[in-house]
């Protein structure tokens, strides 16, 4: 069949490599360059104001050895995880309401915008004033700040659902459940992923702020403490250690998950 032959030659089957280690050489070079620049700046300015990589790592090691690192890490992570979960539940619900129903959009879009505009600091102060200097207030403030950006992502995702695919499923008599799980959800998944990434970034930034203002443990508290002591090496150490932690989450969980979920996507070359 001539058509089939033509078709066969037309298909250029190119799959995205499953390897997460692609381009690892250049990433490594980039990291090494960054460390070199850091070292250079430290030497040029003064190791007192800009501690170099070596002394920063030493400071991290010191806190790890004393056990302080793990306790503060745990406190911060518990706050982050519970706030993120709460923000996700509220944000996804609001996003779906706004995406599916015009009334929902009209009722909520202003408040999501307002929520996004008000600085996290305001929520933090208000929460502490209402609930006192405790973890309930901390979690309320963090999730409050985070949920608008999650809601916006989900809102966009729900609005971008291709109704034509849903109609296709309907003519083949897919049940409502099947249409939701097999046709709608996969379309929203990239937005859910974006919401997660965005949300985690916001959660982390607000958590540190909350700890600085009203808690007596966590990375934010230790940052403030080091600042009071004017201990630059410790400021760098706490920042670095948590940054590494976040990078590990990104490269170890989010990226591989994304690759697994969206492997079907065409490679964007540019």
């Amino acid at each position: 069949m001539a058509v089939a032959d033509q078709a066969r030659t037309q298909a250029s089957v190119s799959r995205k490599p499953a390897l997460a280690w692609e381009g690892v050489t250049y990433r490594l070079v980039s990291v090494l360059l960054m460390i070199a620049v850091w070292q250079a700046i430290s030497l040029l300015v003064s190791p007192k104001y800009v501690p170099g990589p070596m002394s920063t790592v030493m400071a991290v090691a010191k806190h790890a050895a004393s056990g302080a690192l793990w306790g503060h890490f745990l406190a911060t992570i518990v706050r982050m995880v519970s706030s993120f979960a709460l923000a996700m539940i509220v944000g996804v619900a609001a996003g779906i309401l706004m995406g599916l129903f015009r009334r929902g959009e009209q009722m909520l879009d202003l408040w999501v915008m307002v929520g996004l505009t008000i600085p996290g600091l305001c929520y933090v102060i208000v929460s502490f004033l209402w609930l006192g200097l405790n973890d309930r207030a901390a979690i309320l403030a963090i999730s409050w700040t985070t949920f608008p950006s999650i809601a916006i992502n989900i809102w966009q995702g729900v609005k971008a659902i291709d109704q034509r695919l849903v109609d296709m499923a309907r003519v083949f008599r897919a049940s409502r459940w099947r249409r939701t799980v097999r046709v709608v959800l996969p379309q929203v998944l990239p937005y859910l992923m974006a919401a997660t990434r965005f949300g985690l970034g916001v959660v982390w930034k607000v958590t540190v702020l909350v700890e600085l203002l009203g808690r007596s443990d966590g990375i934010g508290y230790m940052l403030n403490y080091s600042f009071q002591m004017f201990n630059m090496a410790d400021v760098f150490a706490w920042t670095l250690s948590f940054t590494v932690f976040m990078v590990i989450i990104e490269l170890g969980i989010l990226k591989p998950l994304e690759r697994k979920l969206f492997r079907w996507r065409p490679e964007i070359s540019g």
Partner: protein
Amino acid sequence: MATITIDIISKLFRSRAYPEGLLSLDNIRFGVADREFVCLVGPSGCGKSTVLNLIGGLDRNYTGRIEIDSRPLSHDGSHPVRVGYVFQEPRLLPWLTVRKNIYFALESIGVPHSEWRQRTETWLEKVGLAGFGDSHPHELSGGMQQRSAIARAFAVDPEILLMDEPFSGLDELTARSMRQQILELWDTTRKTVLFVTHNSFEASYLADRILVMSPRPGRLRQEMKVELPRPRNYESSQLFEFSVQVTRLLTHGGNGM
């Protein structure tokens, strides 16, 4: 065995510009006999796709009655007659391979799992896509995607096949070979086909009978039996002359078009 009886009294199109509703279909009455190939032809905007949507159950907001095999089209999708649908675009789920796309339709419509593989391979082969089951839609050309959609529609073994300008997005050469193919498939399976197009040559080449529609509101203007012998030849002058007649009907005196 499957016949379609359509008796649409009216279909209103509501929008912000027409809060009262704009009459988009007016008194559309026709039948499609078992194993018949009927083309619904009309200029764009005449509501021909709307007719298909109503039969396919995608739009339930109309006055009138649609019967398949003398049973009114149920509104819950539990009608015993299987309908295969080919849209203007392939409408494949982009995250599934071609094979899994067909499985999706088979599973949705309730075909037993044991038959999926056999049916899918058979139809991929018949549309000339043997060996492409594991490709994702974006790895295929537009024509191949549309052929996957045709394989999907046939694989559910429908009694009725609804096709909504399935070749209008393809280049003429691909469209030609696919028209030929669809006729071969129809010849061996003898489905009841209702095919929507704005292309009078395409309609003349394919159909047993052509229904010409006029726009605003959508009405049936004329019915034409295509008495040309099958298999039909693209180069035949009779076919060409017939299609000119259809075109004339489409353009002649059409409400100031």
